[in-house]
C-alpha cells in the first residue's frame, strides 16, 4: 500500500499526480473464501479489515451490490458519540469510540474525526431526569459525560435561543466532549483501502441473490454477476436490506426498514462548533468542515426502501432547527436525501448468530450505525473469525427478542443518531 503523507502529496504533485496508486483493486472473486462479508458499507469493510488485521483471516471477500460506502455510510449525518444509557449499548459504543480515536493513523487515511462534542438538549423536567440518569450511567461506565444547565449550554452554542422565550425552553443538556463527527465517505474508503492492502477482495457491483445452504448450514452465496461463491462463514452487514437477505436464508428478523432523512444547508461561514441534538423538539444539527449545516431528525413512520422519505419530516425537522436557532431562518436548504435504516424494536442492533449455521447478521443499527462502524466491525470480525460471538456482541443476539432481554434505548438515548 502506497503510504499517504504530506511528503507523498508533494512528491506526487511534482509528478502531476500521474503516479498515485489505486486505493483498492478490482479483483475477480475466487471460488471459495474463508469468510464472505455481504455488504461493502462502513461496517462490512471494517469487519473485513479487522478480520485480516486482528485475526489474520485474509481470504475474505466483501460483496457489494453497488459501490463501496454507497449505502447508509455515505448518507448519514456523521455523528459519533457513545453516551448510551444501558451498559450493554454504552460499552459497545464506547468500544467503537476508542477505535475512532486513532483510526486515521491506523488506516493511514484521514477520516477527519473531529471531537467537537455533542450536546443532547433537555426541554422538559422529564428530559432532564433522563439526562441525569444517562450521564450518571455514562460516568460509571467510564464514558465522558456531564450535565449542563442552560447557561452552560449557551456558552457552548452562543447563537442558540436559550432565552426561555421559546415554546420548549432549553433547560439543560448532556455534554460529551469526546463525541463529534467524522467524514463518512473517508471511513468507508479508508477501511476499504486498508483491507485491500491486507488481501481482502472487494467485489463491487455484485449483488447476492441467494444463499447456498446444505443441511441448515450456509456454504456460500449466489451472486448476480459471478454465480456461486463459497465460504466457510458468511456475515451479512447490509443495513436497510437485512430482512431481504434473511428471507433468502429462510428466516425473519425483528426489523423494519424505514427511510431516515437528512438535509444540508448551503455552505456558510463557521457559526456552530459542536453537534446539537434535541429529542424533544426533534432535530439535530452540526456544521461540516465545508460549512454546510448538516441536519436530521428521526425516521419516517412507515417502512420504505426508496432511499427517500416524506416531506413533512423535513418540515418538522426544520421547524425544530428554527425553534432552536431562529437566526438560521434566512439560511437556505440545499439538498435533502434519505437512507434506509433497519430498526429494531429496542433501538439497539443485532450482532448475532442466526438459525442458519455459520451465517451471522450484523444489522438493526437503526439511526445509530455510523458512530458504531469501528466497534461493530471489530466485534463482528472477532465473532466471524472464531465462530463465537464477541462478549460485547453477546447481548445483541437476535434471540433476545424471544427471551425478552431487550436493551431498550428508546427514550433513553436522546434523539435518534
Amino acid at each position: 500500500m502506497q503510504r499517504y503523507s504530506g511528503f507523498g502529496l508533494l512528491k506526487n504533485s511534482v509528478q502531476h499526480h500521474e503516479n498515485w496508486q489505486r486505493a483498492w483493486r478490482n479483483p475477480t472473486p475466487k471460488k471459495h473464501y474463508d469468510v464472505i462479508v455481504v455488504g461493502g458499507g462502513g461496517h462490512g469493510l471494517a469487519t473485513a479489515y479487522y478480520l485480516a488485521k486482528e485475526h489474520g483471516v485474509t481470504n475474505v471477500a466483501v460483496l457489494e451490490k453497488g459501490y463501496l460506502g454507497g449505502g447508509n455510510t455515505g448518507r448519514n449525518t456523521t455523528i459519533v458519540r457513545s453516551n448510551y444509557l444501558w451498559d450493554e449499548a454504552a460499552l459497545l459504543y464506547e468500544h467503537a469510540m476508542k477505535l475512532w480515536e486513532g483510526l486515521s493513523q491506523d488506516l493511514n487515511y484521514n477520516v477527519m474525526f473531529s471531537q467537537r462534542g455533542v450536546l443532547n438538549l433537555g426541554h422538559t423536567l422529564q428530559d432532564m431526569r433522563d439526562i441525569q440518569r444517562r450521564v450518571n450511567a455514562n460516568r460509571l461506565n467510564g464514558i465522558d459525560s456531564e450535565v449542563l444547565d442552560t447557561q452552560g449550554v449557551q456558552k457552548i452554542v452562543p447563537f442558540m435561543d436559550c432565552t426561555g422565550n421559546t415554546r420548549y425552553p432549553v433547560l439543560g443538556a448532556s455534554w460529551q466532549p469526546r463525541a463529534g463527527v467524522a467524514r463518512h465517505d473517508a471511513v468507508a474508503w479508508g477501511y476499504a483501502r486498508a483491507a485491500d492492502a491486507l488481501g481482502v477482495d472487494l467485489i463491487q457491483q455484485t449483488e447476492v441473490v441467494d444463499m447456498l445452504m446444505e443441511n441448515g448450514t450456509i456454504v456460500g452465496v449466489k451472486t448476480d454477476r459471478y454465480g456461486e461463491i463459497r465460504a466457510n462463514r458468511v456475515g451479512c452487514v447490509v443495513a436497510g436490506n437485512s430482512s431481504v437477505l434473511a428471507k433468502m436464508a429462510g428466516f425473519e428478523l425483528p426489523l423494519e426498514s424505514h427511510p431516515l432523512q437528512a438535509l444540508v444547508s448551503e455552505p456558510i461561514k463557521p457559526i456552530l462548533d459542536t453537534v446539537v441534538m434535541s429529542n424533544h423538539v426533534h432535530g439535530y444539527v452540526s456544521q461540516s468542515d465545508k460549512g454546510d449545516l448538516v441536519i436530521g431528525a428521526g425516521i419516517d413512520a412507515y417502512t420504505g426502501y426508496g432511499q427517500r422519505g416524506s416531506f413533512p419530516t423535513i418540515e418538522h425537522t426544520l421547524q425544530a432547527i428554527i425553534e432552536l436557532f431562529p437566526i438560521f431562518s434566512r439560511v437556505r436548504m440545499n439538498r435533502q436525501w434519505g437512507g434506509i435504516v433497519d430498526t429494531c424494536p429496542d433501538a439497539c442492533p443485532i450482532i448475532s448468530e442466526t438459525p442458519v449455521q455459520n451465517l451471522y447478521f450484523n444489522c438493526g443499527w437503526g439511526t445509530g450505525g455510523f458512530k458504531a462502524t469501528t466497534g461493530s466491525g471489530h466485534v463482528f470480525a472477532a465473532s466471524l473469525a472464531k465462530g463465537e460471538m464477541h462478549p460485547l456482541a453477546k447481548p445483541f443476539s437476535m434471540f433476545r427478542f424471544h427471551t425478552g432481554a431487550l436493551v431498550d434505548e428508546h427514550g433513553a438515548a436522546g434523539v435518534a443518531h
Partner: protein
Amino acid sequence: MTQLNRLSTGGRINRSKPLRFTWRGQVYSGYEGDTLASALLANGVDVVARSFKYSRPRGIIAAGAEEPNGIVQIGATEATQVPNVRATQQGLYEGLVAEPTSGWPSLEYDLMGAVGKVAGSAMPPGFYYKTFMFPESMWMTYEKFIRRAAGLGRSPIAPDPDRYEKTHQHCDVLVVGAGPAGLMAALAAARGGARVIIADEQEEMGGSLLASRELLDGGPATDWVASVLAELNEHPEVLLLPKSTVNGYHDHNFLTIHERCTDHLADRAPDTQPRQRLHRVRAEWVILATGAHERPLVYGNNDVPGCMTCSAVSSYVQRYGVVPGNRLVVSTSNDGGYQAALDWHDAGRRVVAVIDARRQVASTMADALKDRGITLIEGSAVLNVAGSTRVQSVEVARIDADAHQVIGPVQTLVCDTVATSGGWSPAVHLSCHTGSRPTWRSDIIGFVPGATHEQRLDAGALVGEFSTEGALNSGLAAARQALQALSMSVPEVVVPTLAPVEIMPALALFHVPHTLPTSRAPKQFVDYQNDVTAAGIELSCREGFESIEHVKRYTALGFGTDQGKLGNINGMAITARARGMSIPEVGTTVFRPNYTPVSFGAIVGRDCGPLFDPKRYTAMHEWHVSKGAAFEDVGQWKRPWYFPKAGETMAQAVNRECVATRTSVGILDASTLGKIDIQGPDAREFLGRVYTNAWAKLAPGRCRYGLMCGEDGMVFDDGVTSCLADQHFLMTTTTGGAAGVLEWLEFYHQTEWPELQVYMTSVTDHWATMTISGPNSRKLLGELTDADLSAEAFPFMSWQPMTVAGVPARVFRISFTGELSFEINVPANYGLHVWEALFERGAPYDLTPYGTETMHVLRAEKGFIIAGQDTDGSVHPHDLGMGWAVSNQKPFSFIGKRGMVRADCVRPDRKQWVGIKTRDPSVVLPEGAQGVFDPNAPIPMPMVGHITSSYWSANLNRSIAQGFVKGGHARMGETVYYPLADGSVVEAEICSPVFLDPEGERQHV
C-alpha cells in the same frame, strides 16, 4: 458609475425606473427588470467571487439557476442578511446591498489566491484524506484552519424579521416552467377546463422566448407570451406563479413550490406580507417543461472572468440590454451557440470569430452568421484562455473528428469574452426526485426523464425538443394527454407558426482536448464552485474511485450550491472516457430536492415562534396565570408546576403546598388527564383485556385503578377507571398518554376484537377536573353541595353525581395523595366557576392551590408511581411491586400477561422498584442517580438501578426517594450507594416505597 455595457435600447428592463444598488460598498445603478447579475455586468463588474479551493477570480458565467460563481451575500441590515444568493436569480431593487462571499482582503488581492497558485497543485481531489494525520493530536488544530476557509456567505446573527407563509394547493395540472412548452401546455389545459397551476422560477414568465429572435405568428415571441399570459390571468381556474421554483417533486404527485413574493421589491417584506411562500401542491397531473441547461465547454482556464455560456450572452443582450464585453469569441459544438454571436454583433460589438467543432457546417444559423460577415472557424475549438481577472485572448486549434485530440497548430485570438456551448442538458432534476432514473439519448446528447409511476408528462427541451416549434407542439401534446386522462374535453388550440429552421446535428464535445495531457494541461474546470477539474476526475478514476457516485464524492463534483447543473454531464462524460465506457453505462448521480436552495424559513412557514407547537390550556388556566403560577410543559399542555407566593423559592412554595395539603386542603387542576368514555355491552370484557387487573365485578358507582401493559408485559400507562353504569365506564389516562391510549384501544377493538360491542369517545376536553385533597376537603366540598359526603354514603374509590357550586358534577373519591380527596369533574365551560367557588369557600381552610411538583411529592410519599417517570418501557408490574394489580384469574389472556412471564422477565435479579432512604435524611438524591452495591469497584462500575423519583418531604422532614435496585424486593434494609457527578457517594437504605401512612388510614376516612 456609468453602465458602460448597457445598450441604449432593447431588452425587457424598464429604463424609466433606474435603481441604485450597492456592491462591495460602492453604489451602482441598474434598472427595474434587471437581475443583480445583469446590473453588475452592465456596470462592467468582472470579478464577483473567488473560488473555494484555489481562490481563483471568478465572473458570472450563466444567466439562471445554473450559475455557480455569482454567489453573493445580500442584505442591508444584520437581520436581513441572506447568504449565497445567486446574482443571476436576484431581481434588482432600490437599495439592494450585496457583498461577495469570498476573497480576503479583497476580490482582487486575495491572499488565499496566492496560496492557491503555489499550493494548488498539492490539492488534488481527496488531498485531505492523505494528509493532516500526524501527529494524531494535531488534527483538531489543522481542522480549525480548514474550517476557517469553509462556507460561502454567512448566516445572519439576528432573528429574521420576515414572515413565511405556507399554503396547500390542489390542481388538475401543474405545469412546471413557463417557456414555450409550459405556456402552451397551460393554455391548452386551461381551455380544456382543468384547474391549472403554472410556476416558473424566473422573474418573468416566458423562458427562452424572452431572449428569442424568432417570430411567432409573424410577431415577436414576447408578444405571444404576453397574449398567453393575459388569457391565463383571466382564467378563474388558473394560478400563475412567477418567481416560483418548483423545488421538490415528492411521491404521489406532491410538489413544493417556493414562491419569492417580495425578494425583488426590498430588503425585507412589507409588514403583513410574506417574504416567501411555500405552496404544498397535490397535482393530479404534472407536466414538466423545465427546459434545458446549456453546457459550457471544458477547456483550459475556462473559469477566467469573461468566459460564459452562449445562452447567457444572449440572455444578457436580449433580455437586459447588456453586452458583457467588447470582443467575443464563440466556441461551440452545435447551432445553439451561434445566437450569441448574432446578438453580440447586432448589439454593435465585435465578434472576433465563431469556432465550431463541427466540420462543413450548414444551418440557418450559420447562414445568418455569413450574412453578417462574421468569421467562422470550423473543426476547431478554444483550447485555453489567457488572462487572470478577465479574458485577454484565447488559443484556438483544430481538433479531430472525435474531439479527442488537437490536430492543428494553435493560434491566438485577442478577445475579452468567450462564449461556449457544448449542447443542452435537459433539466431532468425534478423527474428524478421520486426515484425515476433518467435515460440517455444519444441523438440529443443528453439525459431525458425516465419512466415513472407518477402521473407525470414531460414536454419541451426537457425531452429534447430544443426548437421553439418542437417545444410548443410537445407542450400541447402533453396537455392533451393530461386532459384525456382527466376525462376533460380537449380544446382547439392552434400552435403559432414559425419560420422553418434548418439545424445541423451537434457534436458530442464535453472536454476540449489540449496539446498536453489533461494532468499537465492548464486547469480545465468542470464544476466551478468546487474547483473540480477534468484532471481531478481522471485522477479519481485512476485511484479507483470509478463509480460516478465515487467520482462525485471524491472530487465534490456537483456538490456546490448549483448542484452541478452546469458541470455534471461534462463530468460524467469525462468519467466515461477515462473508464472507456459510454455515458449511459456510467450513469448519473441521483438528483434530489431542492432544485435550487430554499430558505429554511419558507419550509418552516408559520410553525415557528408562538405557533411552533400548540399550547393546550385547561379551563382554569387564566386563574393560574393570575396567581403567578410557574408552568411545566407536559406534552403540549401547560400545567401549573407550583404557585410561588411573593419572595418564595420553588422549594419553599412546594414545601408550603405539601404541608397545607396534608394538614388542611390543597387543590390541583387535573384537567389534563386523558378521559375516555367507554360504553357498550362488552365494555367490561374489553377493560378486562386491556388492563392487567379484573373488571368483571366492579359495581356501578365504584372506581378502580388499572395498569396498562403492552404485549411485552411492560407498563405504559395507568389510571383510574370508574363504572358509571353496568355497561358504561369512564377511563382516565396519563396526561401525555391520552391520545396514544385511545388509539391503542381502538387498534385492539377494530383490528383484533371487532366482535366486542363497545364505543370509545374522548372526553378529555369536555371535563374540567379539580382535585381537592386533605383532611378538610370533605368540609370544603360540603359547603358547595347538598350531597351526603360521609364515608358511609360516599366511600373511598366510589363516585357520585352531585351538584357542586350550582353545577352538575361527577365527583370521584379517589386519591393520588393518600389524603381524603375528592376529584370534582364539571363540564369545562363551568370549570373556572366551580374552581373560583371553591376558593370563595376555601379561605377558612387555607385552601392552597398546588401544582405538579407538589403532586409528585405527595404521591411519592405514598409510593404511587408516575408512568413515564418511574417506568420507562422496560418495567413490568411485578418489577414495580404491583403484582396486586395483575389478575391471572381472568379467562382472557389480557394484553401483557404472556409478555411478563418470558424467560428474562421472571429473573429474580431484575431491577425492582423500591424506596430509597438516604442515611443522611437531609440529603436529597438527584433523580437519575445510579446505584451501586460496591462504590469502590473499578470503572466500569456495575450499576444496580437508578433513582426515578426523589424529593424533600416537608411532611416527613426528610428526603425520600424511589428507584430501581437489582433484586430490590428481597433486599429490604440493605445498603445501596449512589456515586454522584461531584465525586461524593451517597449511602442509602433500601426500603418500602411507601413512606407515609402505609395502612392508608388517611384516605379511608
